[in-house]
């Protein structure tokens, strides 16, 4: 029976299965096919901390969620419309979130007694009243896959590995997406293993054909989601880690400096180390250090010698780097420190997202040790923010903390390719050999920026000694003088505070510049806050959205702006950190809305908090 095709504005699909079922691949391939159709999208890879958790267990479930649409998509979607569950454990952990009336695809072949037991089901939930709320497609995908790849002669185990492609084929059919890019990708990926490539392609085609020809439940429709009308240009999908790495490379080029990245493997920051390690063509030097401390120290050594040092880690690693950050602050050397935040404290939730390192960023380190802190809001935004971090570091001779998080690092979204030639250079000029009768003073400051005079080894005449001991304001030599320490401390603060004059004024994302309520966010909560404010405004509420990129120093108009609203609500994936900073800086009654579940906010949760605030 030919299915009718229904136009949809957007849809949320979640692929869930065992860690070994290849759900991340399925999701990312569905993403690239979807992106090529021009839909806007946001993705959320949600995987376990264990590399290979025991098969079939609930804690071994790996999921990939995509929200895509013919309109601007800013979140991964509160609730899936379609859930693909490759085994009972995936069903158990994900069913609760499926929209009522949503579509559920299950592989009955994986619903064995043993798998049901492992997932904690006494009997199969399929066919029970528990399923009444959903449209269920229960198929023996395992069997269908074995059938489809039979002719390529794989063993049972290897053949079953193609299950995810069979499923992908069917979902592609369901959403009228093309198979070609995936076929190309499979042939390339398995170029050396033609049997595997052919089997995967066969499974993909079989899944697609199944949708086309099989008599599925008549109530199941085929969907069409068109292109999002967006700014004209050339697009690609990008993850936060990719965009950030490219931004660092661009920042190095704009500064006219070589990048030296010192890093130590840590979840979820490692992809940045991996990406930059693969960018030798751009002259990027990467150093996998023996530990987090060595990673930042090598970056500082590189900056001392005239490169731009960069270090990348996540919360626990950033904690280890704090003393060295103090050294970079004291010696006033440029450095970019990237924190891909994860759930804490301690080891916390390595694969789950959180934004609980804001205090660490602003207030960390011993002594009065200010540094600029900036945050990214989405995967694509990472490119620009990374460039800005490089600019501030070299212009102000300071370490800069760039906050991103596990969600942004792994999530993908369509990204309009930037015109690299249009980026404004901020070329560094090192101190030159002093003229006759002149001497070089490493702590001579630029009058406007207060940045010191960067002289580097290899240049005759600018030899100097620096270190973590307090330096004389006038000469840069060691000084234990009391008044001098006061002056140097004041100067270090003045330098960082002065950056407020060099950054854009805070804009209001949505709504008026005054009113009943403003929702203030930072980082990856941008999507859910934006959608919630949009919905609230559509419902006639006086609500605005402000999203802060520059967290230290704040834009110079932020205080006045916030005072224009009766109420301030601050949703954060932490226990209320920005809220405290805002209260401290502006003496305003900022109200927190906190969630530390390791998952992004749902739009509805922010929306109900908005409603409660406005009507209170």
């Amino acid at each position, binding site marked *: 029976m030919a299915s009718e095709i229904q136009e949809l504005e957007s849809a949320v699909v979640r692929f869930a299965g065992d860690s070994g079922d290849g759900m991340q691949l399925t999701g990312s391939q569905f993403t690239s096919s979807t992106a090529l159709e021009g839909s806007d999208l946001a993705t959320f890879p949600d995987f376990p901390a264990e590399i290979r958790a025991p098969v079939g267990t609930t804690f071994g479930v790996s999921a990939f969620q995509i929200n895509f649409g013919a309109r601007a998509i800013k979140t991964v979607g509160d609730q899936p419309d379609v859930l693909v569950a490759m085994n009972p454990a995936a069903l158990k952990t994900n069913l609760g979130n499926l929209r009522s009336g949503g579509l559920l695809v299950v592989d009955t072949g994986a619903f064995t007694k043993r798998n049901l037991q492992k997932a904690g089901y006494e009997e199969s939930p399929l066919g029970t009243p528990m399923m009444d709320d959903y449209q269920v497609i229960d198929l023996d995908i395992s069997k269908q896959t074995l059938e489809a790849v039979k002719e390529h002669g794989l063993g049972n185990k290897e053949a079953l590995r193609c299950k995810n492609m069979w499923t992908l084929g069917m979902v592609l059919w369901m959403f009228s997406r093309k198979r070609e890019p995936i076929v190309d990708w499979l042939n390339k990926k398995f170029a050396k293993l033609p049997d595997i490539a052919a089997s995967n392609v066969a499974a993909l085609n079989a899944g697609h054909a199944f949708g086309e020809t099989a008599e599925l439940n008549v109530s199941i429709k085929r969907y069409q989601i068109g292109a999002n009308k967006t700014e*004209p240009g050339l697009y690609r999908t990008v993850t936060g880690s990719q965009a950030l790495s490219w931004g660092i490379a661009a920042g190095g080029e704009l500064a006219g400096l070589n990048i030296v990245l010192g890093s130590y493997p840590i979840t979820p920051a490692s992809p940045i180390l991996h990406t930059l390690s693969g960018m030798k*063509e751009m002259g990027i030097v990467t150093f996998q250090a023996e530990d987090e401390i060595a990673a930042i120290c090598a970056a500082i050594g590189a900056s001392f010698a005239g490169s731009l040092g960069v270090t990348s880690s996540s919360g626990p690693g950033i904690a280890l780097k704090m003393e060295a950050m103090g050294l970079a602050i004291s010696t006033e050397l440029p450095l970019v420190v990237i924190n891909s935040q994860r759930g804490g404290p301690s080891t916390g939730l390595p694969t789950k997202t959180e934004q609980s390192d804001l205090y660490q960023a602003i207030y960390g380190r011993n002594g009065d040790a200010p540094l600029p802190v900036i945050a990214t809001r989405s995967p694509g935004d990472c490119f620009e923010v990374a460039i800005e971090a490089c600019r501030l570091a070299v212009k102000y001779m300071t370490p800069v903390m760039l906050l991103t998080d596990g969600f942004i690092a792994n999530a993908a979204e369509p990204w309009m390719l930037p015109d690299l030639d249009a980026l404004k250079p901020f070329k560094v000029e090192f101190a030159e050999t002093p003229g006759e009768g002149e001497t070089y003073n490493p702590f001579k400051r630029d009058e406007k920026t207060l940045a010191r005079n960067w002289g580097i080894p290899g240049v005759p005449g600018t030899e100097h000694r620096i270190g973590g001991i307090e330096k004389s304001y006038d000469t840069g030599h060691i000084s234990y003088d009391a008044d001098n320490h006061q002056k140097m401390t004041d100067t270090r603060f003045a330098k960082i505070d002065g950056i407020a004059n060099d950054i854009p004024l805070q804009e209001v994302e949505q709504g008026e510049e005054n009113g009943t309520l403003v929702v203030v966010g930072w980082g990856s909560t941008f999507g859910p806050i934006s959608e919630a404010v949009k919905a609230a405004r559509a419902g006639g509420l006086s609500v605005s959205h402000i999203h802060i990129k520059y967290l230290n120093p704040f834009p110079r108009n932020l205080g006045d702006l916030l005072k224009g609203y009766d109420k301030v609500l601050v949703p954060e994936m932490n226990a209320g950190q920005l809220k405290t900073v805002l209260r401290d800086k502006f003496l305003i009654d900022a109200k927190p809305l906190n969630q530390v579940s390791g998952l992004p906010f749902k739009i509805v949760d922010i929306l109900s908090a908005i409603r409660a605030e406005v009507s209170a």
Partner: protein
Amino acid sequence: MNEMTAPVQKLTIKDFTSDQEVRWCPGCGDYAILKCMQRTLPELGATRENTVFVSGIGCSSRFPYYMDTYGFHTIHGRAPAVATGVKLANPELDVWMITGDGDGLSIGGNHMMHVLRRDVDINILLFNNKIYGLTKGQYSPTSDPGTRAPSTPQGSIDSPMNPISFALGSGARFAARTVDTALKHMPGVFTRAHGFKGASFVEILQNCIVYNDATWADVTNKAVAKDKQLLLEHGEKMIFGADANKGIRFNAKTFALEVVTVGEDGITEDDILTHDETNLTLARMLAELGAEPSEPMAMGVLYADPAETTYAEAVHAQVNEFKGKRTLKDMIYSGQTWEVS
């Protein structure tokens, strides 16, 4: 007008001496090391602009302030990592790293191990005074057991480590030892360390006159030095002693080095080992020599066996192989893209 280029003058000790007042305790062994360095660099043809001294924290780590070169006084234990970064940024620089037994082997032990293993082309001078000086006299990882210090009023309990054995165990390809007062011996060791391509590790027995005075006296005192120091020379017999009749022999039964006297018990010069600085097994044995009161400590270059290439060179070779082959734009614009019009 005639453009005149100044004739290239040989630098002197003065050129390498900064205007900073030296702040070590009077009588500290560090003074002699500093002078020796300032005197040796001109001999090596070093330039001020290409020379960088990197240090950690401790008495010895103040060293860079007194050299009129580039200098970076970093944080406790981390000098090897900072020095590695300096070399990664500019492999051409001549980098010296100054550290002590606490800085280099305790808080910075991990970095020391890795800088040696990686064979980063820097010269590491470890001032070993077997005590924490700057923090006022606590025992260190090289202190003799039973060292009475503020933190160990009943005497320290833990076993000390041997810096050269640690270095060789970490994969160092150059290890040498000298003494702060050996003003004739030290320049030669510095020269060898400087000339070595790769990480060169030099232990300097240094006297802390305030907190651990005379800790090396039984090795370095003039009266005993000849009997307690084995001055190594590559290709030369390991002969020492006031009468130049003692030697080192390999005892195959105990699988150890032993001290013998030429002319006694039928021992001839033929029984004495000849130093081969490329022999790692020999170097490991020599490093431990001196543990017994009857044994001398080995001085000079115990081990020198350079690798084909050094770390920073290899890193840059990898980068240069690809550099310029693709631009950032190529990279960003590659892959699956689509046009929105």
